[in-house]
């Protein structure tokens, strides 16, 4: 068990990433009750946007100088796509039967993924992503890479900024009101369309941060990275209680830690030797989701709502 701190840290890192992406799901869901399946692809386009900026920067530019530009590039791409999807694909369907926007989201997700695959130069396989300089170092028995540090810092900064925004700003309070009761919010003079756009934009922004962090951490981005990540992030959002922004981050971290511990330790349980390891970790994440849905369908931080028939 001397690997436990390291495995917990591994889970924390990957979990922060899930959490950052999950924010996008949870905010959009909280306000319009739409599972934006295409959100995973928005994360992917954010990463590719950042890479596109990097490749067009002059050679020899320091990665630290490039980083803000890359973040801006990724954020612009991701936010534009997220908001564009809302405006062009989802908004016209607000009154449609509930399947329509879900199917649209799936179509959008496929189209975005394929668009990058087909038209981003040489994106048919993994693309190399620039790396932060410096080697990994050890904190106690836990070894940490620069990419991990960036990820955790980004997650903490983003979360506290979002919390402050929602709590203190006018728009933030309007968002809360809209999430509570869109009709009343509209009667109170809140422009719900604007609030929805802002929710999509914040989701896109966070996804772009996650995309950049992922590229820095792994050194490779791929056109299909959004699917898995999106699925995991949605799971995280449900775990934490969908609609709750803190829940999204908590759910992400819980999911990450559960995955890494399942992968590391399940094979130590007698009778389950073969069911541990990397290959089964997605299965365990799924089992965790099912268990939570069975025992606490409102999620860890979700409120018990009457009559969720």
């Amino acid at each position, binding site marked *: 068990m001397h690997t436990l701190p390291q495995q917990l840290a591994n889970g924390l890192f990957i979990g922060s990433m899930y959490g950052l992406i999950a924010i996008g799901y949870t905010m959009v869901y909280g306000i319009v*009750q739409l599972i934006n399946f295409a959100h995973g692809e928005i994360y992917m386009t954010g990463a590719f946007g950042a890479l596109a900026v990097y490749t067009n920067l002059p050679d020899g530019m320091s990665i630290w100088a490039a980083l803000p530009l890359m973040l801006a590039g990724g954020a612009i791409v991701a936010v534009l796509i997220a908001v564009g999807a809302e405006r062009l694909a989802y908004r016209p369907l607000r009154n449609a039967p*509930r399947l329509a926007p879900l199917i649209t989201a799936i179509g959008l997700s496929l189209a975005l993924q394929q668009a990058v695959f087909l038209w981003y130069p040489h994106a048919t396989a993994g693309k190399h992503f620039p790396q932060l300089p410096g080697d990994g170092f050890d904190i106690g028995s836990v070894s940490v890479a620069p990419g991990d540090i960036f990820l955790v810092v980004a997650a903490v900064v983003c979360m506290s900024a979002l919390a402050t925004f929602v709590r203190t700003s006018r728009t933030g309070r309007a968002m809360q009101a809209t999430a509570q*009761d869109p*009709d009343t919010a509209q009667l109170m003079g809140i422009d719900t369309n604007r609030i929805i756009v802002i929710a999509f934009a914040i989701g896109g922004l966070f996804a772009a941060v996650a995309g950049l962090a992922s590229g820095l951490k792994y050194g490779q981005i791929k056109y299909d990275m959004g699917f898995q990540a999106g699925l995991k992030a949605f799971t995280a959002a449900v775990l934490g209680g969908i609609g709750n922004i803190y829940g999204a981050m908590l759910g992400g971290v819980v999911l990450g830690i559960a995955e890494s511990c399942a992968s590391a330790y399940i094979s130590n349980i007698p009778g389950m030797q073969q069911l541990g390891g990397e290959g089964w970790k997605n299965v365990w994440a799924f089992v965790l989701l099912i268990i939570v849905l069975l025992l606490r369908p409102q999620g860890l931080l979700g409120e018990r*709502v*009457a*009559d*969720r*028939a």
Partner: protein
Amino acid sequence: MTTTIPQQPTPASAGPKQALLEASGVIMRFGGLTAVRDVSLTVNGGEIVGLIGPNGAGKTTFFNCLTGLYVPTEGTVSYRGTVLPPKPHLVTQAGIARTFQNIRLFANMTVLENVLVGRHTRTREGLFSAIVRGPGFHRAERASRERAMELLEFTGLAAKADHLARNLPYGEQRKLEIARALASEPGLLLLDEPTAGMNPQETRATEELVFAIRDQGIAVLVIEHDMRFIFNLCDRVAVLVQGEKLVEGSSEVVQNDERVIAAYLGEPFEGTPQSAPEAAPADAPESAPAGAPDDDEAPENDEQQENDK
């Protein structure tokens, strides 16, 4: 409206004065808000009972508790002496049918199909017999259709059996909802504002319809804002204010009760939602918490929203 409903004899047909529905000590809390406070109500066989109260008095919430849409925080509801499980389909199965305040038809099914759905609990044909289509299936299907057509005759909708429910005019949609409820062969029918939005002629017609239903031996519990309608119709009237039963008795008793007059005084019966504290009757001992929202609407909205998704 004198057509008889050929009713299959109900085995345990309750005698005229036998208690059909007994709700005792029903309390419903949503978070910190108590929408229904310790309400007890009895409906006897062959009786028409009215339930009135200002907007937000908790009438619909109480209805939802009776029909299992909400699980009451405390208290029990029993029908013909048996305590009802808080599951809507079991309540209907037991013999209580209802309509909704805001009409909830199956909009894209035909009028006839809507009524056939109401027959669900009184037929047994499962998937297997539907696929095999033995003689028993055809017999049951024919019987259901005949019965449904009788009910459409009874409500005067037979000519429109093949229309989509959504295409009916408003008044006929109300009638169709009643026909659909009657299809489940209830012993007790709960009507939630059956004349809302109707003109005087339509209201009279509905009155006739309710009497005709009562004449079939079906007890009726009706929520209404239209006082004339209620006092013409009901054998007994209960008044709900602030989630509490204020008075219960014959029309005259209720009409002359000064607390009822106080509760309604100066308040328009329909229209603007009233603010709770001012409207609280002077002698209501525990006033609702300040700023208690319009609980008659809120939970219903919430629940509807959730089901529309």
